[in-house]
């Protein structure tokens, strides 16, 4: 009895803590529910770069983070995945295609001079001056033509290089390449020593958007290695909203139907199971918030499935308790025996679920991981609630002594009196579960 009081106070304590956590901590919702983009970038090897090193990935991650920030969306996440991949998550973005343009581009800004090539054709040759020498780029407009242009301010070192270069190139063209594309190739009139330059968009001029993008990319810095978008998942906010409402409804309806079923079939123990189920949901939800688990659509499916499994533990226990009662056991021993006997089944069967989920979590993609994580948390908590909550409440409600009202368990009186004679004749065997 004392144990049961301790157990009850532990349960009440857990409820209070869980509710506190649920109220105070925010729910982390996945991009498929709030809408947003999830992109996977893979660093690409080039003839110059034969191996992607962790250092390269670090600077790639840094550059990508800077670019994402330039888009101006809050709560973006850039994560490393594997040896050569980055996962970029941008929540509630209205135009994911625009964001993509910012990410994949190498953003190499190069200044080139013209030399005569082998076949007497003029070719552009690198001068050694590049985007790395740029301190800052800004969008400006040409006062005479009104066209958009990009103003560049070099670093100290860059200004020296640029000055020297323009000195040697007086009367000759100097080309500016962005991402391998020729932007403009003005003829140098005189040496430029002030450390400033401008890029105009050639004959057509820049669109504002174009100039703005170039400025953002140059300021964020070039990517140390080219990166390619190999996976994209973008969910519009409309679909996200739709999914979240549907999942909520499905979850609640599913839960309600299961609860009704339990009461209809198991009567009073069914009510106890329902209480355990509600507590189970509260505990599980609190754990999701503590970890924190990002709830995705698949994650919610995992959670709803775990409700089914949580009920299973209760069903196993009740079926077993009923059998013990049929065998004429007293309430107290029947309940205890029901729990003990059912426990091996519950444990072994849940272990296999835990094994599969662990494998899924290790090898799966992010969708699968979400599912596995919520299911495994659900299964572990369900074992806990079935054994502690259900058992404590069963004892509290039914107490000990003979079962006087078998209908509380959905049993008939004659089923019990019939079998209790077996216990009278053979109590030791009956205790071991022998039913003959």
């Amino acid at each position, binding site marked *: 009895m004392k144990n049961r009081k301790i157990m009850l106070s532990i349960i009440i304590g857990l409820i209070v803590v869980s509710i506190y956590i649920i109220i105070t901590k925010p729910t982390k919702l996945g991009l498929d529910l709030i809408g947003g983009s999830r992109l996977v970038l*893979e660093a690409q090897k080039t003839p110059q770069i034969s191996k992607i090193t962790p250092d390269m990935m670090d600077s790639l991650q840094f550059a990508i983070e800077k670019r994402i920030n330039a888009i101006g969306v809050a709560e973006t996440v850039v994560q490393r995945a594997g040896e050569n991949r980055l996962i970029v998550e941008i929540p509630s973005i209205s135009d994911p295609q625009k964001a993509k343009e910012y990410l994949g581009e190498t953003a190499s800004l190069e200044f080139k001079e013209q030399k005569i090539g082998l076949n007497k054709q003029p070719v552009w040759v690198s001068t050694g001056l590049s985007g790395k020498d740029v301190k800052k780029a800004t969008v400006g407009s040409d006062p005479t033509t009104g066209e958009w242009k990009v103003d560049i301010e070099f670093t100290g070192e860059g200004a020296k290089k640029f000055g020297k270069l323009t000195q040697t190139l007086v009367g000759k063209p100097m080309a500016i390449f962005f991402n391998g594309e020729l932007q403009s190739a003005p003829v140098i009139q005189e040496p430029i020593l002030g450390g400033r330059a401008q890029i105009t968009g050639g004959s057509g001029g820049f669109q504002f958007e174009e100039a703005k993008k170039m400025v953002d990319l140059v300021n964020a810095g070039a990517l140390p290695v080219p990166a390619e978008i190999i996976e994209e998942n973008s969910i519009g906010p409309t679909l996200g909203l739709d999914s979240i*409402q549907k*999942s909520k409804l499905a979850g609640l309806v*599913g839960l309600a139907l299961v609860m009704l079923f339990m009461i209809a079939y198991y009567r009073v123990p069914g009510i106890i199971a329902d209480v355990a189920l509600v507590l189970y949901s509260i505990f599980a939800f609190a754990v999701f918030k503590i970890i924190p688990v990002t709830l995705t659509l698949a994650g919610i499916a995992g959670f709803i499935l775990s409700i089914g499994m949580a009920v299973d533990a209760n069903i196993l226990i009740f079926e077993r308790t009923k059998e013990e009662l049929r065998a004429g056991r007293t309430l107290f021993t029947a309940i205890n025996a029901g729990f003990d006997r059912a426990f*091996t089944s519950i444990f072994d069967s849940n272990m*296999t679920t835990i*094994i599969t989920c662990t494998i899924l979590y290790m090898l799966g993609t992010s969708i699968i991981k979400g599912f596995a994580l919520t299911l495994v948390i659900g299964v572990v908590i369900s074992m806990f609630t079935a054994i502690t909550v259900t058992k404590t409440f069963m004892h509290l409600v039914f107490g000990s002594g003979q079962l006087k009202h078998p209908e509380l368990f959905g049993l008939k009186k004659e089923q019990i009196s019939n079998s209790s004679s077996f216990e009278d004749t053979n109590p030791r065997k009956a205790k071991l*579960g022998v039913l003959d």
Partner: protein
Amino acid sequence: MTSPLLRDKNIIDVVKFKWLWIGISLVLIIPGIVAMIYSTVIYHSPMKLGIDFTGGTLLQYGFEKQLTTQDITTVRDDFKKVGIENPVIQIENADAFLKKQAASAKTNNQKAANIKSVISIRTRFLSSEKSNNEINKVNDVLRSSFGSFVPLQVSAIGPTLGTELFKNAIFALLLAFAAIVAYLAFRFQLDYGMFALIALFHDALFVCGMFSIFGLLFGTEIDSLFITAVLTVVGFSVHDTIVVFDRIRENSRFLAKKMSFNDVVNASVNQTLARSINTSLTVLITLLALFFLGGVTTRDFVLAMILGIFIGTYSSIFNASTLLAMWRSKGAKPTPKAA
């Protein structure tokens, strides 16, 4: 001799009708196997693989205009002009979507309230390199043909990534199988593990077969979520089988001297029958709620699980244990029960 109590409680004599259960299993599985073979011959894979495994881009849009198949034919030519050949374009059932949207429009989503048609476009993996953003090209084509739209989702998987995901998925599946058998062999005995494996293989085969049929009939594709569903089904099937096996293990400890193994199996299956059915019912209730009320994105996933839970319950009651009984009675004294 079976005790009177046990015989009274036996609702079905599972061991006696073992050939019937095996027959039903064959009827359930063979159409799927035929479909898988047919599909392999025609499409080179037993099930229709989605972009997760083949690589590709899937775009989904909601339009305010009611679109017809005629519209789709014209837009197909426009896609060809921008270099996107042979896209698979589907107009989806906008009714269910529309209703839901009308409801959600009350909250704040005015724009979404007008969606009349939803179209899905599946193509090869669309490049998003530099200025050549092919998804933007698709957007432009659609905008100029049908007016404004609400982008619902974009999902793109690079071609190399697709094969990688597929390999990972198959590897995960095999690893899970092996781990489960190892666990059962450890907790029970090797032959228990073997028959649980046969039962779960039976279940996985049924679900895959059904999806192969769906693929042929309705173009249903399998994705990573499908693999998850199969794995969950496998977990659940074993879960069910274990409950029965656990009972057999317990009963044979006490009753082995009085009853034949066949009778022990019969008694155990009948004792756990109520539990097996009730548990499956509760899980099916939650799954059905998800199926009818949940999001479109997880519908196939839930369907795979519904089929799996159904077959898993069947195999744990009628297959795993009767096969175990057949196997054990062959080794021990022969019982004259075979039909």
